[in-house]
């Protein structure tokens, strides 16, 4: 943000300007594009439609032969019942808390480490980076028992810290941010170095503002992954008061094992917060650079 006041000399800032196509609009092409998108998107949204319509049905009408695609009579009761029959509020609050903390830590430490991997040269860097990537290749199911024993020795099990420790330091964020930092020209950083800016300053005042789309992507993906994580909380959390939304929904499924209408109601409610966040935040992925004010 402070970039605006003191742009380092002779840095081709406009190099990183977003693509702004301004072709003459082609009416027919435009219409065809909308039709194609419309068909595609309705196919994509079909399962979500089914979730919503199921949540408005009587329970035993959810699975029938043949399938009923819309409710005979709309039953809003499920949306009232679920708050009474489940601890939805607790689950949502827990998940929100966890998602925010995990995302914050992941974005912060991930982008920080990525700068070290992408722009600072030191011995052993590439080997260490490969080790990071390598762990992505190990399926979690195979080391979750050793990890569980370790966590319980550290007395982390059945606390939120276990989920935070599990999710906040993943190699994914480091990898993602490193790839984006590599697209930022070294000239820019060298110029800043010559200007006497130290590495931490470069990270904070050049890299962070320039990588807003990547940061936004990482934030959103981490948020979604933490929000939707099921196996982690399943293994680590036992106390009902700590349940996350996925875990809560799953226990709800086992408890009311055949109440599919209610389960679908819960699923709809669990998706909504993320959908709203996405809708509000999506422009940052694409307009991120413009909004930080780098008009060149």
């Amino acid at each position, binding site marked *: 943000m402070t970039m605006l006041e003191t742009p380092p000399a002779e840095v081709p800032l406009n190099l990183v*300007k977003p693509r*702004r196509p301004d072709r003459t609009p082609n009416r027919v092409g435009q219409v065809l594009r909308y039709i194609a998108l419309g068909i595609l998107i309705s196919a994509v949204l079909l399962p979500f439609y089914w979730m919503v319509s199921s949540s408005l049905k009587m329970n035993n009408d959810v699975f029938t032969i043949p399938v009923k695609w819309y409710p005979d009579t709309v039953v809003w009761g499920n949306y009232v019942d679920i708050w009474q029959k489940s601890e939805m509020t607790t689950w949502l609050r827990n998940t929100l808390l966890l998602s925010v903390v995990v995302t914050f830590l992941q974005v912060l430490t991930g982008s920080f*480490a990525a700068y070290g991997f992408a722009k600072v040269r030191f011995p052993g860097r590439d080997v260490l980076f490969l080790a990071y990537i390598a762990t*992505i*290749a190990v*399926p979690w*199911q195979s080391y979750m028992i050793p990890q569980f024993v370790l966590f319980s020795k550290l007395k982390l099990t059945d606390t939120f810290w276990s989920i935070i420790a599990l999710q906040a330091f993943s190699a994914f964020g480091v*990898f993602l941010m490193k790839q984006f930092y590599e697209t930022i020209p070294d000239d820019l950083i060298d110029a800043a170095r010559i200007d006497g800016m130290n590495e931490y300053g470069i990270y904070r005042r050049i890299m962070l503002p320039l990588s807003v789309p990547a940061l936004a992507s990482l934030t959103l993906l981490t948020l979604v992954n933490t929000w939707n994580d099921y196996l982690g909380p399943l293994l680590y959390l036992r106390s009902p008061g700590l349940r996350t939304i996925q875990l809560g929904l799953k226990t709800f499924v086992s408890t009311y094992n055949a109440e599919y209408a209610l389960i679908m109601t819960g699923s709809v409610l669990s998706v909504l917060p993320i959908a709203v966040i996405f809708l509000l935040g999506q422009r940052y*992925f694409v307009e991120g650079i413009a909004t930080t004010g780098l008009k060149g």
Partner: protein
Amino acid sequence: MATMPVARRSRGRLMSRNTVVGWSFLLPNFIGFGIFTFIPVGLLFYYAFTDWNVFTGAEWSGLDNFSRLLNDSSFWTALRNTFYYSIFHIPLTLGASLALALLLNRKMRGVAFFRTAAFFPYITSIVAIAQVWNMLFSPSFGPINEIIRAFGVDNPPGWTSSANWSMPAVIIVGVWREMGYYMLLILAGLQTVPAQLYEAARVDGANAWWQFRAVTLPGLRPTMFFVTVMLTIGSLKVFDLILVMTDGGPGQSTLVLTQYIYQKGFKEQEFGYASAISIVLFGICLAVTVVQFLVNKRKDA
């Protein structure tokens, strides 16, 4: 000649200063990562060479687990299925997400809605996904087969309830679910493509396809590299989707390696053997990733 030692010394000092600075950047992440991921993964490599059932102590068994793998037909089936899934899932997802990203990387009415919609499959709960898609695929009552019948096919596929069609069905759902996720990453990557390169290309009279080949693709390389690596590892490690959709069935037609690992470990309490299978999967992922790294490096040069 006289300046050489000075230069070397100063380079050495720069190096060690860089090491300190570099590590200071890595440390916050590395502390957490090292303790919570590296150590357990290291233990996994030890358990792979033991006979371990969780409760009794792990007994060293050398290469027994690995020689047992050679004769385990279920393992080979799982390996084959893992490749089957990956070979189709990777290019299809890559193509679909790239197409979506290019379509939606422009100012147009309703673009926010379309982007959100494309991302929806990824945020929808996997339980709901499995149920809806299974219904769509229902052999006698599902709408997919109704449409196919309408086109005059008398014997439409049995999809998830048939051994031959279950894998294609799972691949379709896999692509559908993940294309929005990778679209998002590619969209973010597209923003780093310098705009004046397009202008230059247009001045040179390049058509849309040529612009795409000469400007977009090279500019997207770091992003595409990331996407390809993640997609490859993700496909080789596919787990939850298959677990909820077919649970490996019918028979062993959709049994994949991760699922076999889970089955051997948590259902049959053979954690030593399960660890050995993980090592194989790990080796495959690593080999593919290293190849991708090398190819990427060569293009860089």
